[in-house]
């Protein structure tokens, strides 16, 4: 590693970016990304929930497939089909931490759709460590749109869904995270 391994960004948000080109039309990618009330293999088998759809200023949450837990809670910041969707993002189990900020950008390019995930988070927070899962989301959304099937790791996580309930802290119970 370099001599400057210690971060100069301590305390300031750190930005992570992942990008893939997906061999599918932009509408297909968009519709896959913003699906609500359906299990999302690219998002750890969670279900995106919102009241009256995803709209700026409104809350969203990623709930466990059985609907018992809220894994992620956030506020929609931008919703511009089929180009941009952004929201704040807190893992419910890290309650009280500053939220991270996630942006999905879609762009039509030769050969399909360029899909970019950008996450800003405060380094050193638990949320900051957890957003490293960005490549899982980007990678699996690509595979899902192109082949219709999630990858093995995603299938494993979905199969483990009911089991993970035991490990989920009380604070994550869905009734603690109302949408309005």
């Amino acid at each position, binding site marked *: *590693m*370099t001599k*400057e*391994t210690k*971060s*100069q*960004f301590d305390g300031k948000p*750190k*930005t*992570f*970016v*992942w*990008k*893939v*080109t997906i*061999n599918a039309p932009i509408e297909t990618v968009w519709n896959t990304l913003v699906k609500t009330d359906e299990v999302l293999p690219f998002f750890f088998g969670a279900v995106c929930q919102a009241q009256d759809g995803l709209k700026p200023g409104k809350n969203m949450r990623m709930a466990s497939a059985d609907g018992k837990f809220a894994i992620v809670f956030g506020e929609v910041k931008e919703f511009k089909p089929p180009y941009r969707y952004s929201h704040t993002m807190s893992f419910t189990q890290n309650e009280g931490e500053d939220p991270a900020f996630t942006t999905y950008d879609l762009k039509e390019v030769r050969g399909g759709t360029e899909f*970019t995930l950008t996450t800003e988070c405060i380094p050193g927070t638990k949320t900051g460590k957890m957003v490293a899962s960005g*490549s899982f989301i*980007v*990678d699996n959304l*690509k*595979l899902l749109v*192109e*082949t219709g099937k999630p*990858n*093995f*790791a995603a299938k*494993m996580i979905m199969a483990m869904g009911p089991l993970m309930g035991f490990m989920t802290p009380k604070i994550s119970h869905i009734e603690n995270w109302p949408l309005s």
Partner: protein
Amino acid sequence: MSTENDMTAIFHALAHETRRRIMDVLKVRPGIGVGELAQEFDVTRIAVMNHLAVLEAAGLVISQKDGRTRRLHLNTAPIQMINDRWLDDFSSHWARKLTGIKYAAEAAHAKSNQAKSKKREGK
């Protein structure tokens, strides 16, 4: 799926020590500016920019304009796709076990070497 041309570009980009070291720096300092990055290397700024162009063409580096600076990020998605091509869950489980033993043994070996040389210095 990525095409063979994409893969060739990725492996070409990876096949240079300076470019791999650039990726090391971007891993720990996401969002670093081009100038700051160039300071980390003994080669000229132009040489670093040429390496960055190769890395960007392969999709391994993403650059974003921020005022007058160009901020650089490592994109790990292409590396994940290399992984997906040859590793499945079974082989990755065992390969990880093996590399885990390798890292642990090497760390232990380095530690005992350090202790030995300290002892020698003490004599």
